[in-house]
């Protein structure tokens, strides 16, 4: 047991080091070159310089957002895969992000953000996610208990319906809006509003903490739902809380950063291979791993063809997908 704790501590330290390094890289590298040796000086003394503004006003918030969004998606994927005991589930499979994107598209098309301000995006994204959760939830409750299989099917269907509706909105919208929608859908961590970044960060930490409180239940659920009940776990309540947590994490991420593919799917898998299936370490690892992964993908997205910027969702999709297929071929992925 002491051995296990030591191993977990080591994993945590390594992941944190990796995350800090990734964050540091993202801070240093960018379209405008800020020499590494000048950085400390700029941060301490150069409050009015352009470089200072780039570092603290543009790059740093972006890194923080990447940490929050990557971590949220990683944790949400871990929770959902554990709950459903299905390795292919991720926030997107359950239609949560479909609902959120529909909400945001409606906001863009109807120009709500012009009236209520920038808060309209996360609110509508969250509302969309919430509506989908309610729909999936209501449709898959039979006799008071959630049926995982029908929940998955309902989720996939709702996801299709929402993406069709998003396309419908795109077809009828003005070209300005269209550009907004397309860029938003492809996912980007370019978010100028600090309040939003704060909200998402707070939400991601909250979700992480709630998830950590349910790590034992998730472990027990690995033995099967019935067996978990025999071990004293209130599975109905646990599933409800975890589903809502995963939805909140996804809803917040999607509403600020758009659709960032694959993080919620591959990060939990990858972490499972590295740290094992014990949720006590898996949840926090998925958070840290998701954060680092998204920071690096975003770094890639904004530097690969500078000064142009690629949507980060495209990068996570490509890198994630290829890495995943490669790893899948090398090693049996396990839940």
């Amino acid at each position, binding site marked *: *047991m002491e051995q296990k*704790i030591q191993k977990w501590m080591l994993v945590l330290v390594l992941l944190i080091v990796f995350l800090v390094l990734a964050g540091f890289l993202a801070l240093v590298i960018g379209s405008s070159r800020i020499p590494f040796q000048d950085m400390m000086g700029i941060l301490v003394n150069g409050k009015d310089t352009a470089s200072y503004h780039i570092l603290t006003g543009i790059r740093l918030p972006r890194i923080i957002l990447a940490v929050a969004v990557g971590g949220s998606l990683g944790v949400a994927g871990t929770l959902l895969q554990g709950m459903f*005991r299905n390795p292919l589930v991720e926030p997107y499979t359950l239609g949560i992000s479909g609902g959120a994107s529909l909400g945001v598209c409606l906001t863009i098309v109807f120009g709500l953000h012009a009236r209520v301000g920038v808060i309209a995006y996360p609110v509508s994204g969250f509302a969309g996610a919430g509506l989908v959760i309610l729909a999936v939830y209501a449709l898959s409750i039979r*006799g008071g208990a959630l049926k995982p299989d029908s929940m998955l099917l309902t989720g996939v269907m709702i996801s299709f319906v929402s993406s069709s509706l998003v396309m419908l909105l795109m077809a009828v919208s003005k070209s300005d809006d269209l550009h907004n929608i397309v860029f938003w859908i492809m996912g980007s961590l370019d978010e100028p509003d600090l309040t939003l970044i704060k909200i998402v960060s707070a939400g991601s930490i909250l979700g992480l903490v709630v998830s950590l409180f349910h*790590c*034992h239940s998730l*472990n*027990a659920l*690995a*033995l*099967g739902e*019935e*067996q978990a*009940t*025999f*071990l*004293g*776990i*209130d599975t109905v309540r646990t599933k409800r809380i975890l589903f809502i947590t995963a939805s909140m994490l996804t809803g917040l991420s999607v509403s600020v950063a758009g659709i960032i593919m694959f993080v919620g799917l591959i990060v939990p898998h990858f972490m*499972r291979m590295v740290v*094992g*299936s*014990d949720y*006590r370490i898996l949840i926090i690892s998925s958070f840290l791993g998701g954060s680092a992964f998204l920071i690096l993908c975003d770094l890639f997205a904004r530097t690969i063809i500078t000064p142009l910027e690629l949507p980060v969702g495209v990068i996570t999709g490509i890198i994630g997908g290829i890495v995943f297929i490669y790893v899948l071929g090398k090693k049996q992925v*396990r*839940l």
Partner: protein
Amino acid sequence: MTQILLETEGLCTGYGNTKILDNISFKVNKGKMVGIMGPNGSGKTTLLKTIAGAILPMAGNIILQGRDITKIPLKERAKKIAVVMQFQQAAYMTVEEYVMMGRLPFFKPFQFFEAREDLDRVHKYLELTHTLELKDLPFNRISGGERQLVSIARALVQEPLLLLLDEPTSHLDIGHQKKILDLIDSLKDTLGITIVIVLHDLNLAGEYSDTLVMLDETTQTIFSHDRPERVITKETIQQIYHTDVLIVENPITAKPGIFLTRQKQTDPQGG
């Protein structure tokens, strides 16, 4: 004086609106093994799951030590009743971690790591089930018989008063069947555990159980609950299973043994 640990009163249970069992009343004495038998579909597993708390009874009561089990909080119930089902879901953890799951009901709120004594208990029961040498193997890699033993260890780690088992020996070879049932049999004396076990094999059920509950598929209730030699009779088997059998007393244990006779009669000399 014998003490009653478990008692069902007019229990009626099933799935959704489909009633499978009706008016089930029987008592289980402390430290005894009660076998549940019956044809396929007679509701053996349903009865076990209802006692375990996985299915809410439609009517009637299940009383454990004088308390209605539906009123005992889940976590507290898990300290009193442990369940081993017929099949174990594949779980990607080591045997030791798997057995440790049985300590979950004893974790205090906000307890993140298991304590030294939890680990000691895990090792104790792995040893008792002769599976200690498997402790670092992945649960999915061990054989079916070993999985069953490890699951029993997981149930014992809960240190229950009542152990419920659903056909723990089906699909196992005769050697493992005996090993597992001998182990379960010994728990009554060594740990004072009371056992309710669903067994398909009438010979095994008759050999190991103190009393047998025979379920009748047509009436959806208990046909008889008595000592094995009184339940396993030619007449009962004929009525419940619609099969002619020959009952022969085991010369060593004096328990009833069942022989089937093939419909097409052959010459015993093999000609």
